[in-house]
């Protein structure tokens, strides 16, 4: 089972059509996820991580829309009484309001969010919200759903789960709320859990507990996790594979070891230099921060999106040519002109320029 493909994003583009212009929030993202793995998506604020995640479920906020690309989800379902059904569905092709996509949401793919306080309704009990999620997808009675909700709450480590069913969010601590959120997302045994910065709003101890919980649950429920985070420490701890995003594109991806020990893309290198490490001070090494600011989403720089801040900027190349994905060994990709045959690339890009 592990090693099989679960989800493939192919050249995904999601754009926001605002009054002031088009925001190309996700601009040709491609990557693949395996069953049972944890994929971490990292990148600076505003680089399109959340939008990518939401595009998968087609829940991008108005005025945003998936405009191009494919999201191939390999669905494996054990229907009651029937044999296992395997199918590949293109989520990007589904209408965001259609039954088909609603059937995937919460059942095959579920999602948890950054702010556990505001991500749950303030005036409904958490029991109500979890039971709703269960009964929406599973043919169970109210009592069965309730029993399952209690079981889930117990599993995510909420004490006195039976009582907590009737609690409102404002009666729970941040960590408890996030646990309730996780319980809700697990209610239909999803094969993929997308967690959008699930621990950012929590204190450090709680963060560690929640991450541990997610790791345990991943194995227990046999699901994959797409974890979106800013925190490279979390990545090191949790990830099998890493996708580094910059301004709506994938800058680099690979398994966690190669990313950390042999980063190729100057952006990844800069990101890694910006994590504090013990002992650096003693060696007299200053902590780096990435030069400059993320460019304005309304007018993205041409060529490589990172060239405005890159230390290895090559005038005439980086600001003209959009780097193609370059394979650097198995499961390893980088989009940077420092690598690969530049002449060929220049020709190739000129062609595409002509086509445009």
């Amino acid at each position: 089972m592990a090693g099989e493909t679960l989800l493939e994003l192919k050249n995904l583009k999601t754009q926001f059509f605002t009054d002031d212009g088009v925001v190309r929030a996700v601009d040709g993202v491609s990557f693949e996820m395996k069953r049972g793995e944890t994929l971490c998506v990292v990148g600076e604020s505003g680089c399109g991580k959340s939008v990518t995640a939401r595009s998968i479920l087609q829940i991008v906020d108005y005025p945003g829309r998936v405009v191009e690309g494919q999201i191939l989800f390999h669905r494996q379902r054990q229907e009651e009484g029937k044999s296992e059904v395997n199918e590949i569905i293109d989520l990007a092709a589904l209408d965001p309001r259609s039954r088909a996509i609603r059937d995937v949401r919460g059942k095959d793919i579920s999602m948890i969010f950054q702010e556990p306080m505001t991500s749950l309704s303030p005036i409904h009990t958490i029991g109500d919200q979890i039971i709703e999620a269960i009964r929406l997808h599973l043919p169970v009675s109210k009592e069965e759903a309730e029993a399952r909700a209690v079981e889930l709450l117990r599993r995510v480590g909420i004490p006195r789960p039976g009582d907590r069913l009737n609690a409102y969010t404002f009666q729970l601590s941040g960590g408890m709320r996030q646990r309730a959120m996780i319980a809700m997302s697990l209610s239909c045994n999803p094969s993929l859990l997308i967690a959008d910065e699930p621990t950012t709003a929590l204190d450090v101890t709680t963060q560690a507990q929640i991450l541990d919980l997610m790791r345990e649950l991943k194995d227990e429920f046999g699901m994959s996790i797409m974890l979106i985070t800013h925190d490279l420490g979390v990545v090191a701890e949790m990830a099998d594979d890493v996708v580094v995003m910059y301004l709506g594109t994938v800058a680099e991806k690979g398994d966690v070891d190669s990313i950390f020990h042999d980063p190729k893309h100057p952006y990844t290198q800069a990101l890694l230099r910006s994590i504090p490490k013990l002992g650096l001070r003693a060696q007299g090494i200053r902590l780096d921060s990435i030069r400059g600011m993320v460019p304005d989403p309304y007018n993205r720089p041409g060529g490589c999106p990172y060239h405005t801040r890159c230390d290895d900027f090559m005038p005439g190349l980086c600001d003209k040519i959009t780097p193609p994905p370059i394979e650097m060994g198995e499961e390893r990709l980088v989009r940077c002109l420092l690598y690969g045959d530049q002449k060929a690339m220049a020709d190739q890009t000129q062609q595409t320029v002509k086509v445009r």
Partner: protein
Amino acid sequence: MTTEVQPVSRENKQTGRPIEPVQPEHALQDSESRVYVASQYTLMWRKFRKHRLAMFGGIVTIAIYLVVIFAEFLAPFPSSAFSSQYTYAPPQPLHLFDETPDGMRFAPYVNGYKVEIDPVALRRTFVVDPEEKIPVSFFTRGTPYKMWWLFKSDIHLVGPIEYDADPDRIKIPVYLLGADRLGRDVLSRMIYGTRISMTIGLVGVALSFLLGITLGGISGYYGGGLDNIIQRAIEFLRSIPTIPLWMGLAAALPSSWSPLQVFFGITIILSLIGWTGLARVVRGRFLALRTEDFVMSARLDGNSEFRTIMVHMVPSFFSHIIASLTLSIPGMILAETSLSFLGLGLRSPVVSWGVLLQEAQNIRSVATAPWLLVPGLAVVVAVLALNFLGDGLRDAADPYGR
């Protein structure tokens, strides 16, 4: 670890080309950077201008206040000039061009009236007589007046060419919006009414503002027991029906008072209840600001409380206050209109929209002279314009909001 492609070396990377300085072209574009450095007021103005209804409301409001300022000039007749001859005369359309022997010429006129006897009700009614022409003219001499109680003039925007200087009588009928029960010109009265109604709105809001900013400020700045008392008072005032209360208070104004005293009495009564909304806004702002860094540091710098409030806090929500003020003028206008309409507000000879509408209080006068409702249109237009303007200002006051 196998890599198919070796990273190109630094030397190689330059591909032999001379190293050019990094062009600033990819830095923020000029127009872009201006967004970030634009002052707060520029931002507000930019946002306000995008709000088309608000712009429209602003223009209409300015026009209305121009009417307030130039009432004497704009009104063809004094507000009290009457004519026992032309009671309830209907509006006369204004014709700009007349047919003369040498073709159509610019020669404005209105038609005169002839009397008809209503065969059913056996009542005298006026109808516009297309045969008779009364020449009128623009920027013409008419009843003399003292502009702003300062300098004398007798130029009116429009009026009959022949005129009678008697300020109490209308001899030559030019009733563009018809005449009332006493043969007074509805248009002129409406123009003077605009002055009173709009002024009462401004003065009332100014009084409410004083009360509101003082009490709201105390409430928000000091908090605690004072806050509690003021909040209870606000809740109390908001929980009782205003019209009956206003009626009760207004009826208590002594009938011996002069019109000016009544004017201020009514204004005070209206603002006694109107301040609560503003106080809430001010209090909310104060509460939000109290903990902000710049206020804290101003306090720690040893500024006096009053100075802290006036110099550091008030300017930071000035635009919100302006918006709330604009939005409370319509309430004042509507309240004054209602009270005067009931006969409990301003009294003649003071003319306000409400006083004018009082003429239309019973169905019989409305049925004979529906043009008596025209001042109601003025109320609606003024209130709409102020609401549009206020909404636009409120949105603009929050230039970073959605």
